[in-house]
């Protein structure tokens, strides 16, 4: 979200500086003094109109900022956030705007203390300036992407700048000091050690370099004071020191000449620094001020190094961020639905045209067909009637049961010695041709033509009771083969052999209802012949 932040509100001790990125790069739009009448309303108007309501990031550049280096015992990942929050609350109970971030430095486990991580705890007061800024941001209706402390964000800039200025042939300095005067007159010094914020100072100096010598000496005095602090933090000349000063060339050269400490001194204008860092700032900016560089750096960064948490900020930023995300999702949805609707509409148009074209072609073809028909009719053929009636007859032939052919086939199979008792030929029900239904009915035969059969003929024959069962069954099998040979496109199966006593058997019973013993009963055999008209 911060990547789209194009308006920077820099809270200074004297005024709120409003920066906005435009066509010519980041520029200072207005510095609104805190004492100005209708401050919130005016600042909101500037944000909404002059900055076109672009997303806002608030940068605190006030003197009163609090930093503490704290050790936090190593705990598991789940508890770490709670432990840090608790310690932060204890460290700054009276400052609701606060945050913490871990340093690279780690404290190993010792006899008395467990291993710990080192954090920088930072806090800023909920000052009148802060409240006014938040109110202005709220009234502007611009989305608020974050609130940060300038020195913390500047540390990454100084680190990057120091790295870019150091030639490859030379080892990087352990310490870097960035010195730049801000538009409110204060001199901001940011000191980093091993790429991390070590200390920062904001002190008043003369707000003009009309007398470059005087300006350089005042800045030198402040730098000397900073050096004494650095010495307390363990600075020794052997560590290596980069000093980067933003100033006009004349004043910068004097300052570079009077600094005695062994260091790599770079005095640059704001535009030179911006170019080195790849920042875009308005070319007409005053080249001796450094605050625009901090604003441009934060504007360029995809996310803040240490976003500060505060209820006032979240009350404004969260709903607006949600609304912005929702708007983006809805815009994406609109694009998706719009694109899909466009594609479908195009397809619909295409299909419509295809239907029209096809109908047109069909109509033309019908005319062509009609012409052909008329030609044939002129020759004495009623084509439609002839073809239609023949198609009807063919369909009827297909559905008809050719009884006489089946009977003839059966008769040829029976020969002279056998005579049938009954024959019944009937059409197949549709369900009988379905394989699943047949299997449910116990028919597991794997006949590939089963689905094509349209009728079944059931033939029954009677064999005398004196018939030898085995010989009789052999005769039945032979009969089956003979019928099959006569009816090649049919499926002939023996449904009942002599040895079975199933539903087709005759049963002779006496008057008392019991089977009469001693009465020989004839054998009834049954064959099923399935077929279809080819």
């Amino acid at each position, binding site marked *: 979200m911060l990547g789209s932040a194009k308006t920077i509100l820099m809270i200074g001790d004297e005024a709120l500086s409003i920066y906005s990125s435009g066509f010519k790069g980041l520029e200072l739009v207005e510095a609104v003094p805190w004492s100005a009448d209708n401050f919130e309303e005016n600042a909101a108007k500037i944000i909404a109109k002059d900055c076109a309501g672009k997303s806002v990031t608030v940068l605190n550049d006030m003197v009163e900022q609090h930093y503490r280096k704290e050790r936090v015992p190593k705990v598991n990942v789940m508890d770490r956030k709670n432990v840090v929050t608790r310690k932060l609350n204890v460290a700054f109970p009276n400052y609701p705007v606060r945050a913490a971030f871990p340093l690279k430095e780690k404290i190993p486990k010792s006899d008395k203390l467990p291993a710990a991580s080192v954090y920088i705890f930072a806090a800023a007061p909920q000052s009148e300036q802060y409240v006014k800024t938040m109110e202005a941001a*709220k009234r502007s*209706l611009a989305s608020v992407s974050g609130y940060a402390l300038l020195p913390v964000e500047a540390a990454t800039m100084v680190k990057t700048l120091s790295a870019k200025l150091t030639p490859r042939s030379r080892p990087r300095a352990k310490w870097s000091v960035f010195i730049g005067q801000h538009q409110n007159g204060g001199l901001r010094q940011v000191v980093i050690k091993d790429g991390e914020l070590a200390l920062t100072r904001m002190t008043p100096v003369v707000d003009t370099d009309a007398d470059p010598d005087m300006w350089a000496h005042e800045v030198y005095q402040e730098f000397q004071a900073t050096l004494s602090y650095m010495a307390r933090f363990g600075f020794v000349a052997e560590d290596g020191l980069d000093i980067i000063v933003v100033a006009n060339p004349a004043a910068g050269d004097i300052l570079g000449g009077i600094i005695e400490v062994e260091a790599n001194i770079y005095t640059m204008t704001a535009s030179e620094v911006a170019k080195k860092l790849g920042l875009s700032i308005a070319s007409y900016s005053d080249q001796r001020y450094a605050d625009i560089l901090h604003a441009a750096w934060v504007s360029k960064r995809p996310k803040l190094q240490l976003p500060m948490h505060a209820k006032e900020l979240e*009350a404004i930023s969260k*709903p*607006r961020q949600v*609304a912005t995300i*929702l*708007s983006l999702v*809805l*815009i994406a*949805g*609109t694009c998706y*639905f*719009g694109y*899909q*609707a466009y594609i*479908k*509409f195009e*397809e*619909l148009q295409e*299909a*419509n045209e*295809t*239907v029209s074209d*096809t*109908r047109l*072609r*069909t109509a033309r*073809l*019908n005319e*062509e*067909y009609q012409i*052909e028909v008329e030609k*044939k009719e002129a020759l004495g*053929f009623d*084509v*439609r*009637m*002839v*073809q*239609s*009636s*023949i198609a*009807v*007859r063919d369909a*009827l032939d297909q*559905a*008809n*049961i*050719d*009884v*006489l052919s089946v*009977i003839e086939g059966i008769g040829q199979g029976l020969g002279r010695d056998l005579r049938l*008792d*009954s*024959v*019944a*030929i*009937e*059409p197949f029900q549709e369900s009988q041709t379905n394989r699943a239904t047949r299997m449910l009915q116990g028919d597991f035969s794997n006949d590939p033509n089963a689905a094509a059969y349209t009728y079944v003929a059931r033939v029954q024959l009677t064999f005398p009771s004196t018939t030898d069962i085995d010989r009789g069954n052999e005769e039945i099998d032979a009969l089956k083969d003979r019928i099959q040979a006569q009816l090649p496109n049919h499926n002939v199966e023996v449904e009942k052999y002599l040895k079975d006593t199933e539903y087709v058997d005759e049963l002779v019973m006496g008057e008392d209802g019991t089977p009469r013993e001693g009465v020989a009963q004839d054998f009834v055999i049954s064959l099923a012949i399935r077929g279809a008209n080819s």
Partner: protein
Amino acid sequence: MIGILGFKRIMIVLFLVAVNALLAAALYLYLVPELDTMERKVRTERAAENTVRGDIANIQAEFDQLEVQQDAYDDLRADGFFSNQSRRDAQIVFTEAKAYSDVTEANVSVRSGMVVEDENAAKADQVMLESPVSINFTSVDDIDIYEYIHYLEQVFPGYLSVESFSLNRNANVSDTMLRAIATGATPPLVTGSVELTWHTMVSREDYFANPEQGGVR
């Protein structure tokens, strides 16, 4: 909420929601179903076009076949396939069949005809006239029954399709039976039945102009 988000932002969100809803509704409630319908229409129209193309190709390529078909058509006409199923003509044929086949008895029932739409017949603006026919036989020999059916197949006006057939031998030929047959008696040794459907094709226009002709029993 309006104070924090602003009227304009809320209106933009609401507008976007409305646009999304409108587009989604247009897409899923109109365009997608309409496209499905249209694609089905395209398939149907293409099939119709291909059918006509096929018909044209056939009619152009099958001129020789048409002559053969014309002969078949003439045969159908001669067989009474385009008649309106005169019951009087049918009665004559049934009588002739009985005499021809020597079946002992042939009880014939021709039920009322009904008009049936047929896809092939419709192409020539014709409808099918169908009458169920049931015949119950008794005979000395099953051959007589087969001859009866054969005679009908050859002579009956229109098309007779067999729906089902059954035949039962009621008694075996014994000396007594043979003596009875020798004296001129006709013992019913065989019984049978056949269910038929009498099909003819009639002009839709003619039939609906005079429908009672087809329904006469």
